[in-house]
């Protein structure tokens, strides 16, 4: 969970793939599989999710109501996808500050295709996602061609994409969308589960397969871990950077289109000014989930759990009626506590020779 602070020499940072085993510090009394599980970020996050769920369920009577669970799942679904869209770029050792801006552009394009161009909703979704891939790829191309850090490029394109979108739409919105598309975002499966959450889980599975089992995914991890070594081994690092930004654009677009379905309209303000509202969820999920900011390691499950934990904490704090202006502070403190608890868990295991 606290991988942000784990700095490693460049040489040992290479190829830190998702299935890499943690370092061994002593003789193990547990099986290697169990040891690996206990030491994983994912286990820590899962334990925290269970812990806080129990606390909130006991402290707030409405927490386990079907409406609350449905609303929380739906919010988490979007936050997780936003986290994924940043994760796939962080893996390459870069950043994408324009995820929110791209997400809104795709959402507005989808709204235009469905309302103005009159295409069926599924073609509108596909067309909008193609635009997302193109915008994302444009980011990647500029990064590769200029040699500038992705932070600089995406900081600039964040404003450019959003500005062009505002110019083209005149800050107008699209709300005459196909009813079945809007209904999808409001649908409840068994009164509790949002179909958006199912879509998110499916995308998580696809991303896991991509990073674990496909050549492109492994190349992306390798390029992120050590670009020079990857280049020497025959990997076209520039192509992988363009690929990961295109993928990021698609994922940001999916999040945008989910929000369109959830709100029933494509609106320019859905991600705030310049799409900045998405930046926090975009970073929190991957960072809490154990994705290294230096690149080379992706944790799809960790990102999913990290984003869900943040949504859970926010919902729980709201239900506890913590003063509005204390929610952010409490959220920060709880996240810090979560990191420290995770650290304690690791320390305890090490001291008791459980690893």
């Amino acid at each position, binding site marked *: 969970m606290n991988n942000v602070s784990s700095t490693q020499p460049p040489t040992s940072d290479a190829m830190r793939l998702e299935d890499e085993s943690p370092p061994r510090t002593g003789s193990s009394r547990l099986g290697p599989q169990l040891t690996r599980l206990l030491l994983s970020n994912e286990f820590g996050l899962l334990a925290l999710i269970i812990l806080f769920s129990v606390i909130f369920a006991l402290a707030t009577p409405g927490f386990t109501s079907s409406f609350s669970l449905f609303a929380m799942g739906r*919010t988490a679904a979007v936050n997780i996808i936003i986290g994924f869209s940043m994760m796939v770029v962080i893996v390459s050792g870069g950043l994408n500050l324009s995820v929110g801006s791209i997400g809104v552009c795709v959402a507005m394009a989808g709204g235009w295709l469905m309302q103005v161009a009159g295409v069926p909703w599924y073609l509108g979704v596909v067309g909008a996602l193609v635009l997302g891939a193109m915008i994302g790829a444009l980011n990647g191309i500029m990064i590769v061609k200029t040699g500038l850090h992705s932070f600089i490029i995406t900081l600039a394109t964040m404003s450019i994409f959003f500005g062009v979108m505002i110019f083209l739409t005149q800050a107008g919105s699209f709300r005459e969308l196909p009813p079945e598309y809007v209904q999808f975002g409001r649908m409840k499966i068994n009164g509790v589960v949002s179909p958006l959450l199912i879509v998110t889980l499916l995308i998580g599975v696809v991303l896991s397969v991509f990073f674990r089992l496909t050549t492109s995914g492994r190349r992306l991890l390798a390029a992120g871990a050590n670009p020079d070594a990857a280049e020497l081994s025959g990997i076209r690092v520039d192509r992988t950077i363009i690929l990961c930004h295109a993928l990021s654009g698609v994922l940001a677009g999916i999040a945008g289109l989910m929000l369109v379905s959830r*709100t029933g309209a494509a609106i320019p303000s859905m991600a705030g000014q310049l799409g900045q*509202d998405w930046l926090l969820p975009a970073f929190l999920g991957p960072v809490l989930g154990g994705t290294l900011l230096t690149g080379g390691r992706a944790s799809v499950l960790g990102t999913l759990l990290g984003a869900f934990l943040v949504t859970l904490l926010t919902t729980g704090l709201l239900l506890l009626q913590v003063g509005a202006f204390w929610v952010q502070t409490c959220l920060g403190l709880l996240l810090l506590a979560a990191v420290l608890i995770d650290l304690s868990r690791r320390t305890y295991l090490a001291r008791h020779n459980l690893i």
Partner: protein
Amino acid sequence: MIRKVLLGTCMSLVALAGPVSADSSTKVALVPGGPHPYFTAWEQAGMDAAKDFGLASADYKVPQKWELGAQNQLLESLVTQGYNAFLVFPGDPVGTVGIVDELVGTGAVAMALAGCLRDPSEAVFCMGTDTGNSAYLGTQQLLKSLGGGEGRKIAHFTGFLVDANTKLRIDAVEQAATEAGAEVIQVIADIDAPEPAEEKINAYLAAHADEVDGIITTAWVPAVVAANALRKIGDKRIQMVGIDHDEVLLQAVKDGFVHGTMLQNPYGQGYIGSFAANKLREGCTVKADAPFKSNALTDKFIDSGTVFAGIDDVDDYVTSMQSITKTLFESFESTYLDC
């Protein structure tokens, strides 16, 4: 000063409300789009309404940040907490329609307050300032202070472009200026927050103060920042009309740095809105022939009032706002509701 307004308005409305009715199960949530000084009057309005009308509660609930998602999440949590009446400033006039429809789907009453939802929506009505009209009247006052509009050059400082009201304000200022033969030489938008407002207004005035005869501001923060900037410049040549009742702005009016301000009525919105929500939950319905006004977003609009306060009125503006609130409240039930 703000406390004076609230206290004065409260005391006068307690008398209007009459005896407290039996305790109601109505739990009202007054939810702005995010933290903003304009909405702080809603807190007192809710408390007064709960006391005067015997509501279970009428609480002011602020999203921790100005984000549509944060507001949606707060509204969903309020449903879980048992709130059954929602007075909502839409985070977005279209984007908030979905969550309001869902709130109504849970059996709650919902209305748009201070800003409207775009029709169609499940909100019973929208009560707020007629923003276009306020900007139009404010510009007229500004041009009057300049001795007429012919050949005058004015600058317009306003709120976020993603807020549909901003376009209405820009158009209204342009219309009033054109009608009087004046020219809007600069519109600076997206500055209803301290940092961008300080940066852009000060930079603009540093470079172009000599070219400007007047300033109209149609959002809270730009009004405060522009008033401070004119005080710093100090020559009182540039006339300005602001908006709302921030103490900085009111003091600038008293000191002659600002010609006047267009007051709005957030207290009345919260108080009367809570009253109406309770009535609707008790079985009243909105009259089919209620005399709603129309604006660019909705055909179910109730103007909560706006009034210009110049140097002669600024000390007594409480009375002006009380008068508007009283008038609206006295006739509200008979005008808009079937009970």
